[in-house]
């Protein structure tokens, strides 16, 4: 009932004065996942931000439908968000409509009564910003809209440096000094924030993200074991399950040396074995692969590393496809810290953080060095935070305090910050642009408002 009324409201060219928006929806549109939720919710829903077609199932899955997919083999994935910016709006519109649908995870979104807080990555070209503004107001018909800088929202989330028993600050208060390292799917950005506002001259971007790590792992596996060029989803899972960031790269490389193809005579020292077996899913009995400590007897049969192993009970036991992972576990994540290994002309993660700090006045640097928060999907790699901390300590002068921490919920931290910011109605009201203002002043005015120019 209310939805039909809202539909007719959307079709009107100049909207009649509508009721003030009742709810605020926070959307953190990432390249890999979409984090969505109302500001009153405690946590967000993490929805794959893609359209996927499975030729085996002959079905196209939109967004959250993927949870019902049983066979991820040779999944062709179309991602509307490219390099962190929403580029393919027809695909993104399909995803959003699926999320906003009445039966969706959010329980139905009525755009005309909702204020939207949408995140955007730093450095956006003007064209993508304009597209977002136009689509939100003209196509979806939201009542109010605020396009926020993604990393800036992290300042409103609780600080990971305080103990969890400390009382959280009131919603809407940003942390004072925060250096946000957002390690996402498409890239990694370093953004210093002061009271929630970004210091733009010091923002830096490293074009290495989870996507590049997955592709590199795909190439390594295809060269050494068997061809997985089409299996992006599977290799992504392998990366999430088995990869880690090594603390001593040279030592770990020595430990996984294959000794020119001869059977591994050198067993890994003690209980800290790096080499692992990955059991591949066959999508009939095993839906998701898992790792296991390496068992050389099983893979001794097949030199390529793909072994069909039968367990001790022959007839009923499932056959397992085993992939042996040695240095493939830590070589792709090493690209984050040493991109020159592949030939990418960038400094590593530590170098980028130091470049960002170098662009700040010297007196502010200690404050930011002591408040480094790592968020994003790629931040979930084990060992990343420790390695960053150790490298920063080595390259910064003695006596400076360096605190690096991963946010409690690395993937949803930006959304959480947005939700807490939105709960403070007064502050949000100052920056939100309403639909009436959009149609009155035009898109260019809106874009300049969001860039901080021009006052209400």
């Amino acid at each position, binding site marked *: 009932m209310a939805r039909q009324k809202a539909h007719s409201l959307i079709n009107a*060219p100049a909207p009649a004065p509508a009721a003030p928006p009742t709810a605020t929806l926070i959307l953190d549109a990432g390249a890999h996942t979409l984090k969505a939720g109302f500001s009153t919710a405690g946590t967000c829903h993490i929805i794959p931000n893609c*359209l996927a077609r499975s030729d085996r199932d002959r079905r*196209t899955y*939109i967004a959250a439908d993927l949870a019902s997919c049983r066979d991820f083999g040779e999944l*062709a*994935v*179309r*991602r509307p968000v*490219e390099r962190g*910016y929403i*580029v393919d*709006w027809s*695909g993104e519109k*399909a995803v959003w409509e699926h999320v906003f649908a009445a039966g969706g995870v959010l329980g139905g979104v009525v755009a005309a009564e909702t204020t939207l807080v949408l995140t955007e990555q*730093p*450095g956006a*070209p*003007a*064209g*993508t910003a304009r597209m977002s503004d*136009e689509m939100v107001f*003209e*196509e979806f018909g939201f009542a109010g809209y605020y396009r926020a800088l993604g990393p800036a929202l992290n300042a409103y989330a609780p600080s990971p440096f305080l103990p969890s028993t400390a009382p959280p600050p009131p919603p809407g*208060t940003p942390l004072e*000094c925060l250096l946000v390292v957002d390690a996402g799917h498409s890239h990694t950005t370093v953004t210093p924030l002061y*009271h929630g506002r970004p210091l*733009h*001259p010091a*923002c*830096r971007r490293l074009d290495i993200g989870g*996507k590049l790590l997955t*592709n*590199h792992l795909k*190439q390594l596996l295809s*060269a050494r074991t068997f061809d997985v060029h089409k299996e*992006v989803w599977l290799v992504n899972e392998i990366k999430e399950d088995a990869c880690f960031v090594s603390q001593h790269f040279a030592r770990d*490389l020595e430990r996984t040396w*294959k000794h*020119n*193809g001869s059977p591994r005579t050198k067993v890994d020292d003690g209980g800290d074995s790096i080499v692992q077996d990955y059991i591949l899913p066959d999508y009939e009995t095993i839906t998701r692969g898992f790792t296991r400590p390496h068992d050389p007897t099983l893979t001794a049969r097949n030199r390529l590393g793909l072994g069909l192993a039968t367990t001790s009970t022959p007839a009923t036991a499932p056959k397992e496809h085993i992939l042996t992972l040695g240095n*493939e576990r830590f*070589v792709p994540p090493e690209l984050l810290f*040493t991109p020159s*290994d592949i*030939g990418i002309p*960038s*400094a*590593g993660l530590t*170098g980028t953080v130091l470049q960002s700090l170098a662009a700040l*006045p010297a*007196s502010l640097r*200690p*404050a930011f060095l002591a408040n480094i928060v790592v968020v994003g999907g790629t931040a979930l790699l084990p060992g990343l935070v420790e390695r960053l901390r150790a490298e920063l300590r080595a390259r910064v002068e003695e006596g400076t305090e360096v605190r690096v921490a991963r946010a409690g919920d690395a993937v949803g931290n930006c959304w959480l910050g947005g939700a807490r910011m939105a709960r403070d109605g007064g*502050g949000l009201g*100052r920056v939100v642009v309403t639909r009436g203002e959009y149609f009155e002043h*035009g898109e*260019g005015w809106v874009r300049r408002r969001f*860039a901080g120019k*021009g*006052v209400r």
Partner: protein
Amino acid sequence: MATGPLRFCTPHIDELPTTGSRQAPGFAWVAVSGAQDDPAKNWGTSNRKRARASLNGPTEQQKEALSARQQREVERKIRDLNSDNSKNASELAIPKKEGGAGASGAVRAGKTPNTKKILGSGKTFAHYLDDEEAEIARTGRRDVDVEVSTGVQRPSKTPIARRKTREDSSVSGSPAPVTPMAPPPWPRTAQALSYGEITNLDDVDDEGEDAVPPLPSEAQLEALLNAPPLTYGQARSRPPSSSAAPPRRFCETCGYWGRVRCMKCGAMTCSVTCKDDHDQFKCLKMYA
């Protein structure tokens, strides 16, 4: 290249005996310290012949080795790594909603001319980036800084007395500060940018430091906060300085340190067995 005793009688040159000079033959042994020990540093000079030849740095031949062809190969690999599998997936059709609303066809295409254009465009991110760079190159400033001069000029409805303040505020770009501290989007009375608070920050973080650089003044801080956002290209991380360690090379076949360079294609492998594998399966790719 030790200098031996002067062979010819040169009247104006006299070799003074120092502790370093001694009767030495016309060549010198120079210690190659540690070159054989650490495999990580050894990749360019794995056997002794090359080690001797490259004492003075890479020879002409070795420099030529990183020729244009390898550069192209490296760039192609990086592009592949950044790909999103969009070749086969960008044509992924959005499934039609079964039993959708009657106007689903029109809705799919977009409700207003602007959105129709957006939904129908097949532009990728590279297009938008190029557009922005072309705009900057053409007009010299970013899109967001440009005032609305080409838009529809509606007759101003504000009375003359109030017109000036509007123009001033939109041109200057920063909120007209009444208080010395310009309010951020979330001015909090308790936590407004006050100088006292900045010194608080100083006390907490720089304890025991005697030579503390002076904190930025209000104006500097405001300038930092109001600075325009960097463009996509400006925000890119810079490559490390050339004085840093040279990039490490790895074996193509197994991933260990690369120690042996293939003469034909310049790829590194770690040992003879891996090199054989490379010659059989991978080397041809450069000539394919």
